[in-house]
């Protein structure tokens, strides 16, 4: 098995456009600082894994990225536009170009799975599709997450893991250039969690979208960094087939880890650097063993 997949060059465009940029962003709720002076930049096709314990501000960070939470100071650029001071009405258009998976899936429980997945397509202002086209796309999206049999079910009839998968289908149905995942594996058993992460990797490598993944589990990031979906045989394959970790300098999945602690961004770098870190808090997320 070789790692040189035919689309590798396409996944690493030479001059990547900036999709999301935080400049000294500070957010506080009732005098409690949730995100403190955070800056980072994401370009097309890149994967970012934000690690942090509960309450470290990582979900706040994600919500601020699409303007769901107002920031106190700093600037946020989304898809090249400064969204810092945009009114809610102006944000709708930009937001509809970004995919989001919420912590519990965030599905609308009063409508069916098919209607949920179709929601972003039906409600976007531009590019209206015919009902038949929407139906085909919904079926494709649900087949992608292996849930094509649930079309007419309601969200409360599905398990937590299935709801998360429907959430992914809904997030990627418009084929957005940037997808945000809020704790995709929180509260799931390890096997289901792995299935979800495999789907996210599959989505990344099928659509070449950039991903911002907020999670508490280092394994989630490890999977994103070290595995790639092979479209030929439909399986996830390690990018380093000979085993061993990711050597410093080589990062074929373009995965960057970020660690949040009490609102501060205390680490940003590759998996190898994360694992080499001697900081007590960071090492809790990255066990010092490769593989």
């Amino acid at each position, binding site marked *: 098995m070789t790692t040189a997949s035919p689309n590798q060059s396409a996944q690493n465009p030479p001059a990547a456009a900036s999709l999301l940029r935080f400049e000294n962003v500070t957010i506080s709720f009732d005098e409690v600082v949730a995100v403190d002076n955070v800056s980072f930049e994401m370009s097309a096709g890149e994967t970012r894994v934000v690690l942090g314990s509960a309450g470290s501000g990582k979900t706040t960070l994600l919500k601020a990225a699409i303007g769901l939470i107002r920031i106190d100071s700093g600037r946020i650029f989304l898809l090249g536009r400064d969204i810092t001071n945009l009114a*809610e009405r102006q944000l709708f258009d930009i*937001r509809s170009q970004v995919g989001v998976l919420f912590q519990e899936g965030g599905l609308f429980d009063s409508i069916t799975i098919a209607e949920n997945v179709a929601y972003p397509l039906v409600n976007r*202002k531009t590019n209206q599709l015919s009902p038949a086209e929407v139906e085909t796309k919904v079926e494709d999206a649900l087949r992608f997450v292996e849930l094509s049999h649930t079309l007419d079910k309601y969200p409360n009839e599905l398990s937590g893991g299935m709801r998360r998968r429907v959430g992914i289908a809904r997030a990627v149905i418009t084929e957005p250039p940037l997808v945000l995942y809020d704790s995709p594996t929180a509260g799931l058993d390890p096997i289901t969690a792995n299935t979800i992460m495999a789907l996210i990797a599959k989505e990344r490598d099928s659509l070449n979208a950039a991903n911002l993944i907020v999670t508490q589990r280092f394994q989630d990031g490890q999977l994103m960094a070290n595995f790639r979906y092979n479209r030929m045989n439909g399986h996830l394959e390690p990018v380093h087939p000979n085993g061993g970790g990711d050597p410093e300098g080589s990062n074929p999945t373009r995965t960057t880890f970020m660690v949040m602690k009490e609102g501060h961004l205390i680490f940003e770098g590759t998996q190898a650097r994360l694992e080499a870190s001697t900081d007590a808090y960071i090492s809790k997320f990255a066990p010092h063993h490769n593989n």
Partner: protein
Amino acid sequence: MDVIGVGSLPIVVLIGFFTGVVITMQMSRALAQYGAIDQVGPIVAITLVRELGPVLTAVLVAGRNASGIASELGSMKVTEQIDAMRALGTDPIQKLVTPRMIATAVMLPMLTIVADFVGLIGGWSIARLSIGLPSSQYWTSAYQALEYNDITQGLLKPFVFAFMVSLVGCFYGLRTTGGTQGVGHATTQAVVVSSVWIFVLTSLLTRIFVNLQ
């Protein structure tokens, strides 16, 4: 609209009927002292159409629907469905608030008309069975007592209440925080606040209409 309108119909009919019954019974005793018991029709008609019909119906709808709206939107808020809606580029106000406001604004005046009418029937049943007033006298005097001003304020009030009740319900629903407990709190708040506002608004509107006469 179906839930607000048809769902509220039985209780509105029941309360309307018994309100008419009670007014007639109470008033007949007072009126008998002045030998004016035949005036019971106009009194029931005016109190119901002007005040009790709109207010009682609105209070019932506040209890049933402001609470329903607040808990529904509140649950959506705490399960991130509102955030999801915003994140998918749609306006929750347009998707959730506007339809509820329209539905309430259409249904509440209709329910009020039903309550007024059923209340008059309740009054008639007592006037006929207990007081022994002839039916024709009751209905004719009740009908003649009503002026345009009464009808206008009787229909304008439920319209105003409808906007207020649905807005209060949506407002408390959408600003829910703190999980399931927060939903319960928002629901209680919505009912209490909208009920109080019904009485404040009816005082204001009555004041305006009384001056118009």
